């Protein structure tokens, strides 16, 4: 593994303490906000609840989509940023190392302890997360459930593959899609995300 996550974490922690006079944090080519995970969890799970049983699948799809589209734009910005060039690029030896760099940035952002378990170039990506803030937040407020709840990480896993093996930016979003077969919200010991080529690509 050529990627040293601690360097990336350090850069993000230092960078997130620098803001311009307007109170905006420009880092890795995006504007960053530091918000309580409670906010995001309330938003997702209340949205799901409001949509009700009949629109459950739609709510889930919308939340995953919002995250995937964001992950796609965000990590495209990140890999073209000055910070990436300075800090991450020197550690990248193969194309596949980029995914390890992406995962390290996600860890730095406080999204969880992402670990890339398997990567089959162009085909499959498996990411394991022992402590996703979505699953943790879900279990804090609700009983254990029958379906997986980490919509943000699910979208982001798909986006990582889109950026590496999808069509060139900006046409590759949703070329891949991810499932979460195991989730702590369901009582599994950890969350696992598997991205594969989409069978039919959503219209963006």
């Amino acid at each position, binding site marked *: 593994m050529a990627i040293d996550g601690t360097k990336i974490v350090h850069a993000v922690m230092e960078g997130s303490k620098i803001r311009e006079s307007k109170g905006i944090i420009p880092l890795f080519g995006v*504007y960053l906000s*530091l918000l309580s995970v409670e906010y995001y969890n*309330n*938003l997702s799970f209340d*949205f799901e609840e409001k949509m009700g049983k009949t629109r459950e699948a739609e709510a889930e799809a919308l939340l995953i989509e919002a*995250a995937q589209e964001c992950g796609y734009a965000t990590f495209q910005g990140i890999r073209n940023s000055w910070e990436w060039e300075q800090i991450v690029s020197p550690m990248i030896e193969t194309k596949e190392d980029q995914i390890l760099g992406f995962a390290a940035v996600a860890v*730095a952002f406080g999204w969880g302890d992402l670990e890339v378990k398997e990567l089959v170039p162009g085909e499959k990506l498996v990411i394991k997360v022992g402590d996703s803030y979505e699953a943790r937040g879900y279990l804090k407020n609700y009983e254990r459930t029958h379906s997986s709840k980490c919509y943000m990480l699910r979208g982001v896993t798909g986006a990582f593959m889109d950026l590496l093996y999808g069509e060139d930016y900006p046409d590759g979003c949703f070329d891949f899609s991810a499932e979460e077969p195991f989730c702590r919200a369901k009582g599994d010991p950890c969350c696992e995300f598997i991205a594969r080529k989409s069978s039919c690509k959503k219209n963006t």
Partner: protein
Amino acid sequence: MIIFDWQHELNRKGHRVAISGQPIAMHCHHYNINLQKTLEDTLGDEGVQLLYQSAEETSYHGFQNLFNQYKKIRTIKSKLELAAMLYQNSGLGIIHFQRVRPSGARIESPASHHVTGWLAKHGRRDTPGCHFTRGWIAGTLEAIYSLPCGFYTVDETKCKMKRDDECIFHVQER
């Protein structure tokens, strides 16, 4: 100036990041604005209400927690100062509390994460769009005045997302 060392307050233990002990996540404008748009497009006014309430509850709990930790921050003035500083340090923008009384307030914001993000992604809109900030203001003032969550309503009369010069918020008792 109040005793609050930001460099010290923002820290991490392993993969968890926290501000003054409260878990946070860093997200960018793409995600924040996507969530807003998804909720507004899918649920209309109910979605707007959800954005407002989530922000209200979160800032309410956050500041209650913070004031419990920092008993020395006692006056309304110093609490407002801390709130504005936290807003800015979290990358949310600039907020000026003006004419703040327990019965209501007027607040101006010349710059914000959500405005910058919205304009970058979607351009100008026809209605005020700072639902997050409205909720954040409500929860913050409720915590500062030790009132129940939901006590205030916050309206945005001018919004930079509509290309007004500033965002202007009015706070009243519900």
